[in-house]
């Protein structure tokens, strides 16, 4: 039995060979790997915000009451869960173009692998200060990208060259999705949902 998040942390050079061998079904991967990964950052966020409060900038610390905080953490969890599964679906959709496997469990495994460093980095949420979280992003992002480019062809069983193309397409799509989310958030703000802005 493999636990992707643990393997990523302890397996080093053996990692991809092990993942290549993995045989779990898609639903097992979701429960065993994806679910825990999606749970950890919201828990860190909850604890950190309760303890210290968020510091976005401009002096004051934002302290939310426990109920709001709980709601935000649950939304965060759901967003991560849907995001991870959505990414796996997206990968599968691209798979024929790059001659990769169609097995959903493998796509999910890849997502779990790439997400692990980010989840580890989310330990910075325990001290929710923007600077600390920004510092954490640098190594974590580089590590994740390395796992994506290195791991994709092996886990999804395609050539390194097609894997490179597929990984780059994924980065493009993720960035577009991220900026779309930012855009939607901002439009909601300007239409009166969320913080009160002087518009």
């Amino acid at each position, binding site marked *: 039995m493999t636990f992707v998040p643990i393997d990523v942390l302890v397996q080093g050079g053996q990692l991809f060979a092990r993942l290549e061998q993995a045989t779990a079904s898609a639903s097992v991967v979701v429960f065993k790997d994806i679910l825990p990964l999606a749970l950890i950052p919201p828990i860190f966020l909850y604890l950190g915000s309760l303890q210290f409060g968020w510091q*976005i*900038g*401009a*002096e004051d610390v934002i302290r939310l009451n426990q109920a709001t905080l709980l709601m935000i953490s649950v939304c965060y969890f759901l967003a991560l869960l849907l995001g991870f599964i959505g990414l796996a679906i997206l990968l599968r959709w691209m798979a024929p*173009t*790059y001659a990769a496997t169609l097995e959903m469990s493998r796509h999910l495994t890849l997502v779990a692998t790439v997400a692990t460093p980010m989840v580890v980095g989310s330990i910075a949420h325990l001290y929710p200060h*923007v*600077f600390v979280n*920004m*510092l954490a*992003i*640098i190594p974590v*992002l*580089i590590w994740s*990208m390395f796992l994506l480019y290195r791991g994709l062809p092996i886990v999804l069983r395609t*050539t*390194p*060259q*097609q894997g*490179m*193309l597929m990984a*780059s*397409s994924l*980065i*493009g799509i993720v*960035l*577009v999705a*991220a*900026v*779309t989310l*930012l*855009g939607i*958030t*901002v*439009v909601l*703000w*300007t*239409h009166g949902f969320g*913080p*009160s*802005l*002087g*518009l």
Partner: protein
Amino acid sequence: MPDPNVYNDRVVTVLVVLSLVWAIAGMGAGVFIAAELVWPTIDLGQEWLSYGRLRTLHTNGVIFGFGVSALMATAFYSVQRTSHVPLFAPKLAWFCCIAWNLAVLLGGISLLAGWTSGKEYAELEWPFDIGITIVWLAFAVVFFGTIANRKVKAIYVSNWFYGALIIVIAMLHVVNSMAIPITIGKSYSLFAGAQDAIVQWWYGHNAVGFLLTGGFLGMLYYFLPKHADRPIWSYRLSIVAFWAFTYSYIWAGPHHLHYNAIPEWVQSLGMVMSIILLAPSWATMVNGVMTVAGAWEKLKTDPALKFIVLALAFYGLATFEGPMLSIKSVNVVSHFTDWTVGHVHSGALGWNAMITFGTFYFLVPRLVGAALYSVRLANIHFWLALAGTMLYVLSMWGAGVSQGLLWLSLDELGELSYGFRDIMASMTPYYALRFVAGAIFLSGAILMFYNFVKTMENRTTVVRRIPDVTTARSAVEAVA
């Protein structure tokens, strides 16, 4: 008497080298001003090291030094190959190369000395404006003269983009630079108030459109099929996208002036045309992605193709983000924040710089007839470029969205909650991350520079004969 049977490639080599020098200098200035936003006192009290002056040096250095030199080099290289003739008026091509770079160099010094017209990307004062016009006309003569001499009937699509670059930039530059000189180093715009703003952003946005986008698409359309060793996925789509792009871009400028003192309908027109622009932009991206997808084996042997793949991904991001930011209800928050700067650099680093790197890794070994000194260094460069761009974009998204929120936040009394100084002070973490991102990106460019110096060491530009045109023509007609 120049030999009519060989290509003029020496001027291309020199332009490539100059472009590389500007890349290092311009991005170096970028990293330095990024540092100034974290540690403001590193200007050491010197006016010429102050943020305001170095920022214009950065933008002019990268756009006109690095970008235009690269565009001239690749235009001269590809127009000869696609026309099967040497350059028309090769001496004039040398004039373009030397005079352009001299203008950017002296112009840069004048910016440091405090000369500026105050118009973004058109800061250089009137003596330079006149000089630039002359060089640009010479560029047009060389380019269109070569096309007129061509031995192949069809004008390949890359030449349409380079041609549009030359014509449109000439038009924009001449109109926007019209001014009344007061002294040698100071002039006042011929336009006033809101008109001046509209003319300026008609210029500014189309400089982005026809230079940083259109010109570099010329590069893409010539060098991508060369790398991939197969024709572009859909030639018809590339032509349709060209005309759609040209017609819609020219109207998009007013999106820089949302909620300003220009007529409401002009703003809305700018917004609508910006949204329409998404279609030709993504058509081009799909065309590129499908061309590479069919040629993936090439990635085994060609370290440069990777840069082009990534350039396409960031081109897709930037051309999606731009139309989105021009929607007024997004722009009201994003304007005057670092989100714009992040958007600019996902294009500038991810698209312009990346595609130029990919092209140069292809071009330099061919120009001097040697293998690339180190494929390993090129691969390391790829990782540094990717990491630098990603971190840059993420830091500016974070900074921009929190700024947007903080600028507009109201307290219980309905007053603005935060002052400018408080907000700027809270940006330090993001700016520090951007500084690191820029330093990573720059170090990649320095590795590339070293790699090319080693590749070119003790070599000169190879003289290449122009291949027989009948075989070439039948090849082109077979594709058409």
